[in-house]
């Protein structure tokens, strides 16, 4: 399988692009030392506390919903590749699959999980 060899080549290439760009920049860019430059950029004021803190839970709710639908998409990919061969049976089976999924989406919608509060 030549493609998998090329996959390794592509990954190495991507790493080389980053290392080369950063290496050249480090080699030719000027350098100066100033304690002020190490501060984080926030409105010119000294930063209050850390930024690694608790965050709005709404984002995680959407991440969980995404997980559910993404797994569903993974199941649909092999089905999509063979549906021309299996015909009407494929249509009926996916009809039930999508029905259950849409019920899940409707439940989340009804419960207000899709609202941004």
């Amino acid at each position, binding site marked *: 399988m030549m*493609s998998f*060899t*090329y*996959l390794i*080549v*592509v*990954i190495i*290439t*991507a*790493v*080389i*692009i*980053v290392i080369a*760009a*950063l290496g*050249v*920049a*480090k080699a*030719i*860019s*000027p*350098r*100066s030392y100033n304690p002020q430059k*190490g*501060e*984080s*950029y*926030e409105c010119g004021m000294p*930063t209050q506390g*850390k*930024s*690694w803190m608790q965050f709005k839970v*709404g*984002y995680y709710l*959407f*991440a969980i*919903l*995404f997980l559910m*639908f*993404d797994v569903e*998409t993974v199941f*649909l*990919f092999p089905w*999509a*590749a063979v*549906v*021309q*061969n299996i015909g*009407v049976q*494929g*249509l009926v089976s*996916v*009809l039930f699959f*999508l029905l259950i999924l*849409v019920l899940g*989406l409707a439940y989340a*919608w009804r419960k207000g999980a*899709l*609202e*941004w509060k």
Partner: protein
Amino acid sequence: MFDFGIITKWIHDWLLSFMPMGLATVIECMLVGIFIILLYLVVAVIMIYMERKVCAAFQCRLGPNRVGPWGTIQLVCDVIKMLTKEIISIRSSDKFLYNLAPFIVILASVMAFSCLPFGRGIEVLDFNVGIFFLMASSSIGVVGVLLAGWGSNNKYSLIGAMRSGAQMISYELSASISLLTIILLTDTMQFSEIVMRQEDTWFIFKGHIPAFIAFVIYLIAGNAEVNRGPFDLPEAESELTAGFHTEYSGMHFGLFYVAEFVNLFIIAGVAATIFLGGWMPLHIAGWENFNAVMDFIPSIVWFFGKTLFVVWLLMWMKWTFPRLRIDQILTLEWKYLIPISMLNLLIMTIVVVFKLHF
């Protein structure tokens, strides 16, 4: 039509004529790597130049026009300027994650980039699960964005990263469902095979109404996935300075910038390949002379022409619509695009099962 596979086969035979198989494979791998780097940089330069010129045209300006003819040398100057800027990393950041983030972002975009079929016989990664691999590798980019935001230890970056995480993963769903709609028509996921199946008619014509709906949904979702256009609130400069890459300077920032533009090219390239026939010329059944004339245009020109046309559509979207709020973005995806694309998938299944396509 010229097949670039002849050139690669010729190089392969020539190398084998005076060296053993193992060494030839190593040299071929290096050639492939150099080819990817060059093409990646050329595409990035083309995209950034085009973005500036198109943006200027939409705002009744001229755009870059001083350095070189029509400002074409401007990009080279910008790269040199970017390289001579100091790379500043802030003291309170998580050094490991902060430095890891550009690697992941570039890795995702290079992996997705090498899946595209650029012309007849120019495919680097041609798996039989091509589309699936492309979706998988392009979604690694979210991890890089989240790491960049979290590792910077900056509130702007954190908010930008969280927003882009929520947005990119959400829009990935409708993008992949609309690609699924076309896989139904082809019964294959291999890119080269998909292009070959479009020899008679492109899929957007073959699949008529559901394919067109899927195309529009894919453009919207793709635009949101690369954080551009009306969906650019991860880096909304008027509220978050630069979003997740606020703390990156110099070439560190340049890598994010390049990856963003190449990701736009990848989205457009996939749209061109799946819906508009990739490098396949426009063929109309029965018009033999017309088809023969179309075959004279090289396959690379067809691919880049279609891709840049889709890029132009996306830029049109970007410079026309105002930015959306985060709740509007999530509402658009979860309450409109996902139900519509699921219904569209069902319609396409009916069309395929009962052979209602052209």
